[in-house]
């Protein structure tokens, strides 16, 4: 069994233009980058744009990543800043326009109504959380990051991460419990 290369190793290779290494970094962080972007923008299309652009910005500025072994944290900072800039720009434009590259939401026969309903509820509930709590709950419960990883990559104390996660979960559960459709999901999961 071979160990996966560390972020530091991949960054050093990517600095020399190694396509495979950069591809591995993208694969490793595309979901967390999207989750962080989504926690800031609250919209799929914006999150997608911000996350994708962040990888390109990171590649352009790879020399500025002083600690390649902490590439993840450095990238998340870029994602947050890009997302904030994006919503600042979006607020100046007509927000009804869907930017190019938005995913095609082809309806699937199963679960589509249920998923849409839950998503709407979650989007609403998430929008009521502070940004940092949104980031933490999405990274932990959607992307499967551990407290230690979140603390390290978002540069927050571990205790703060735990407490934010606790309050975010509490708020989300409260929001979901009171709405129709969710208990079915809960039963299905159990």
């Amino acid at each position, binding site marked *: 069994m071979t160990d996966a290369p560390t972020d530091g190793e991949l960054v050093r290779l990517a600095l*020399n*233009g190694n396509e495979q290494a950069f591809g591995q970094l993208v694969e490793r962080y*595309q979901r967390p980058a999207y989750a962080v972007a989504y926690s800031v923008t609250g919209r799929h299309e914006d999150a997608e744009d911000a996350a994708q652009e962040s990888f*390109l910005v990171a590649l352009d500025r790879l020399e500025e990543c002083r600690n390649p072994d902490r590439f993840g944290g450095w990238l998340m900072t870029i994602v947050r800043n890009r997302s904030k800039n994006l919503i600042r720009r979006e607020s100046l434009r007509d927000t009804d326009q869907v930017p190019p590259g938005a995913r095609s939401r082809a309806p699937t026969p199963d679960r589509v109504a249920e*998923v849409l309903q839950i998503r709407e509820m979650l989007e609403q509930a998430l929008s009521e959380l502070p940004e940092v709590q949104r980031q933490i709950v999405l990274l932990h419960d959607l992307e499967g990051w551990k407290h230690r990883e979140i603390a390290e990559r978002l540069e927050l104390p571990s205790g703060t991460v735990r407490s934010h996660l606790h309050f975010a*979960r509490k708020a989300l559960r409260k929001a979901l419990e009171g709405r129709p459709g969710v208990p079915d999901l*809960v039963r299905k999961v159990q």
Partner: protein
Amino acid sequence: MMDWLKQDAAGAEDLGEDMVLAEALRSLDPATEDPNYWLRFRSWVMSEAAFELARRRRIVELSVEDVLASWSRTLLPVAMAAAVAAVAFIRSPQADAPTVVTVVGVEELLVAEVREETQPVLLSPDAAAGIVAFASDVY
């Protein structure tokens, strides 16, 4: 009451997985509806990054000869221009003009602005007598 949290034994490290919430949050994952979403996401990033990655590869692949050749392309004209400028300066009329040098001794320089010769008087062998005469005049 439902136990939402699967807290670990220590209760201090990780809050553990919240299965229900995790399942609900999965509806926010774009791959829920589009299984190839992340593949396309990565492909888009890689195609946009291709130019920058190629640029970085070119820099690394440059040999020592390439670097010296690129330097010589810049350095040679600059050196030539500097040499021409130096020759022009040396041959200018200002450079040919004779330089007038005035020799001045160090002692002359030191006393040039001093009118009274106070120090030599005080340091002379008769200095003590002079002081006594001065004191007797005053008191």
